[in-house]
């Protein structure tokens, strides 16, 4: 189901008011600092960096200074805050000096991986073709190499050389950047703004620099945090195994020394483990926080559950009190009274987008609901089916179907939907599940709605598919959605909507996605079905030509209100509301007037 994509903003055109959204894009850092985990992680990482830089001046002892009087000194004694190891070396100082190596290793891994993976990903994703095939092959090979085994093998070749080992590790993790960057670039290069940049005459390098990089930036930052976490772990592991330079202090080596001495002085294991674990944890938490922040802008506001309940209850109370009470005329099948729909703008605020709408649809009548995007027409249609988006709130009003209020009882809504009220959506293709055959989907839907046996459902559907103009229904039932055209798919969905013998069809822009010739056929089909079965229909559309073609009565919606309703001939011949006139004038400016000279 697709909701009007700009459904919620007042999309008045250009010269009129600009959509007010004065909030500047918040800086990444500032929104990051709202997350306590991010603050703690950043603080810890920053502390390690500062210590790494300043340790020649602030470390209490040189890294390899042994003090035989302090062998295995417990913590907090003799100026050894964290104690001393088996050779009498100060553990705190060694950890401080070790942070230098950690930071250098992090920078090395990240630089190598970013340069290799990032650049090859950009090139492969942007140019595709053979470049991509080669780069992906190399990346797959690199990724299949077991990292730690490689580093151990490397040790036998180059000896204890941590920078070289970390650079190699950078090469090994480069594929993770390559794959990420490539997939983002592949998605972005199909954007029209890239085409526009080409047409405007930008060189490839500039297109990548200006348009592609900005799209890649966020995911790469997040990925970097996770790669750094791995780098810290790998570095500590390599040092722990004793593959590092023994003369150089490092976290892994401190841990390894403590481990060898664990029976004499078990407490010493705590300090290096703590430092390493916190560093890894910080990078991971920071990565998570970055991801949340960078993606937060795409999340819409949601209402507090308590607030939502209050609003729902007050609407329900009104219903019970009979505010919208009604004894509808005999032939009115759908009567909407005072319907109000809102969307949350924050945890507590709700903006009303449909303001108390009334609507009557008689048996067998085809009712057009016309309006522009953002007018609330789709909201109205969805609410009669109970398929409003999750965050929408019904603030009041009733929907009487065959005299009973659907909103008062969710069970009643469920019973009506699909059985008494059928739905024909706007995008036929996205409303068919690509992994099931047409036959399976239709049969499943019909059986769920009516409880028919499988063979009965099938027989009924075959007859109905023939009725909606499918030449070979048997064959069509075996096809998958991607094997049929859009027009065909819409016929299938109409068939599905009609199959359970509903009284009312709600069609949301049923022909907007179709070609004009197919549109004419689908409209013809809807009209015939309505006549044959006495079906009432609500057709939501922005196309006045469609309304003129198929509808008996029309309601014109603007900004969440119905501004005019009438039978179709009167409305088109003598529009009363200025907005209706405006719509008609605009529509006639861009429509065929072949009668004028023929």
């Amino acid at each position, binding site marked *: 189901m697709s909701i009007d994509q700009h459904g919620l903003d007042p999309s008045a055109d250009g010269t009129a008011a600009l959509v007010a959204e004065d909030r500047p894009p918040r800086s990444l850092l500032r929104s990051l600092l709202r997350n306590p985990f991010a603050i703690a992680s950043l603080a810890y990482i920053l502390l390690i960096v500062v210590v790494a830089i300043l340790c020649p001046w602030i470390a209490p002892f040189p890294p390899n200074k042994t003090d035989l009087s302090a062998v295995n000194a417990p913590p907090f004694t003799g100026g050894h805050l964290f104690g001393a190891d088996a050779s009498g070396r100060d553990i705190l100082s060694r950890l401080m000096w070790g942070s230098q190596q950690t930071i250098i290793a992090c920078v090395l891994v990240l630089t190598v991986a970013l340069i290799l993976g990032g650049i090859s990903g950009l090139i492969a994703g942007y140019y595709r073709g053979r470049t991509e095939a080669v780069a992906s092959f190399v990346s797959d090979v690199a990724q299949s190499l077991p990292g730690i085994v490689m580093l151990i093998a490397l040790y036998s070749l180059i000896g204890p050389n941590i920078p070289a080992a970390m650079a190699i590790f950078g090469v090994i993790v480069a594929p993770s950047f390559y794959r990420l960057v490539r997939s983002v670039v592949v998605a972005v290069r199909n954007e029209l*703004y890239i*085409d526009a940049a080409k047409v405007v005459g*930008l060189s490839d390098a500039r297109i990548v620099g200006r348009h592609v990089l900005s799209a890649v930036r966020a995911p790469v930052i997040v990925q970097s945090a996770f790669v750094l976490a791995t780098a810290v772990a790998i570095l500590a592991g390599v040092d722990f195994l004793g593959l590092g330079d023994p003369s150089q202090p490092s976290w892994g080596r401190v841990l390894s020394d403590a481990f060898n001495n664990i029976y004499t002085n078990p407490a010493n294991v705590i300090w290096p483990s703590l430092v390493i674990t916190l560093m890894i944890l910080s990078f991971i938490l920071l990565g998570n926080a970055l991801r949340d922040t960078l993606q937060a802008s795409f999340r819409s506001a949601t209402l507090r559950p308590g607030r939502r309940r209050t609003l729902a209850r007050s609407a329900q109370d009104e219903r019970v009190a009979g505010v919208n009470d009604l004894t509808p005329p005999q032939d009115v099948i759908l009567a909407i009274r005072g319907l109000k729909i809102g969307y949350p703008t924050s945890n507590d605020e709700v903006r009303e987008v449909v303001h108390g709408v009334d609507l009557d649809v008689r048996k067998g009548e085809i009712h057009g609901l016309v309006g522009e995007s953002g007018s609330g027409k789709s909201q109205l249609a969805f609410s009669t089916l109970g398929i409003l988006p999750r965050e929408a709130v019904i603030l009041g009003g009733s929907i009487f179907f065959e005299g009973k209020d659907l909103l008062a009882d969710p069970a009643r809504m469920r019973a009506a939907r699909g059985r008494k009220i059928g739905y024909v959506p706007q995008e036929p293709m996205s409303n068919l599940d690509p992994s099931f055959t047409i036959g399976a989907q239709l049969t499943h839907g019909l059986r769920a709605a009516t409880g028919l046996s499988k063979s009965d459902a099938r027989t009924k559907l075959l007859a109905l598919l023939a009725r909606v103009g499918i030449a070979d229904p048997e064959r069509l039932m075996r096809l998958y959605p991607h094997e049929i055209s859009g027009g065909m798919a819409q016929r299938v969905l109409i068939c599905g909507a009609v199959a359970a013998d509903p009284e009312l069809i709600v069609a949301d822009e049923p022909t907007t996605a179709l070609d004009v010739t197919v549109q004419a056929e689908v*409209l013809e089909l809807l009209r015939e079905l309505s006549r044959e079965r006495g079906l009432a229909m609500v057709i939501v559309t922005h196309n006045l030509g469609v309304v003129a073609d198929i509808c008996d009565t029309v309601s014109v919606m603007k900004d969440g209100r119905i501004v005019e309703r009438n039978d179709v001939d009167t409305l088109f011949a003598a529009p009363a509301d200025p907005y209706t006139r405006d*719509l008609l004038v605009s529509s006639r400016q861009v429509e065929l007037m072949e009668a004028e000279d023929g």
Partner: protein
Amino acid sequence: MAEPLLSVTDLVVRYGGRRGGKTVIDGVSLDLNAGETVSLVGESGSGKTTIGRAILGLAPVTGGTIQFRGQKIDNIPRSRRRQIARDLQVIFQDPYSSLNPSMTVESILAEPLRAAGVTAGRDRVRELLDAVGLPADAGRRYPREFSGGQRQRIAIARALALEPSVIVCDEPTSALDVTTQARVLALLADIQKATGVAYLFISHDLGVVHAISDRIAVLNSGQIVELGDARQIVSRPQHPYTRRLLMAAPVADPPRQRAKRAQRLALLQRDAPEEPAAPHDAVA
């Protein structure tokens, strides 16, 4: 008549190469003169967008030639293509994906100027915004702050930045509301009057096309089935496919639409042996 500005001769576009390739455009020829509007109309899959993209160098040209001011512009290197960019611009259908969401309107509009090495800067941007009826302070904002119609105005301003002589308009109004659509079409017409730019207008909507075109080419399955004066195509269509298209487009006037529908059904019945029958006829 003077030499046409843009001339497409026997254009063939094939996708897929050696095995199982698909011919999308099959021998299309078309001229566009200075200051004129020629429209390509067709349904989805007719290849109308591909022709526009081939002219802009965004789709591969398998056969035939495209000439601009007498010079061949198909299959030329990107560097040569950049030189003619000044003269050949585009407005895309979807104003949501044709503007980079992370750039301000000002930098979007300055981009073509920079690419061409022009350093006119802010004044020119303000001029462009003015030309498309957007307020001067729009430059500091981001595309997401604008509605569909406003975004399409930004896209038009970008196309105008280098004062091109041809703009390919690829369904520029089909994503817009009807009142907005009318305003954007009026804007395009005003710009043509003021600058003498020629439009190659691509659309599926004969009504829109009729309102703006001098000549119309009707496309079906990668071929032009009818090409002629806009009034003639609409009032005296020669090809059955054109007639079907015309008959299918509904008009916003119930009595006339009823007459038209009756006419369409009669036409379908008459053409039945030649055209694939409308499916409901087969059953009824």
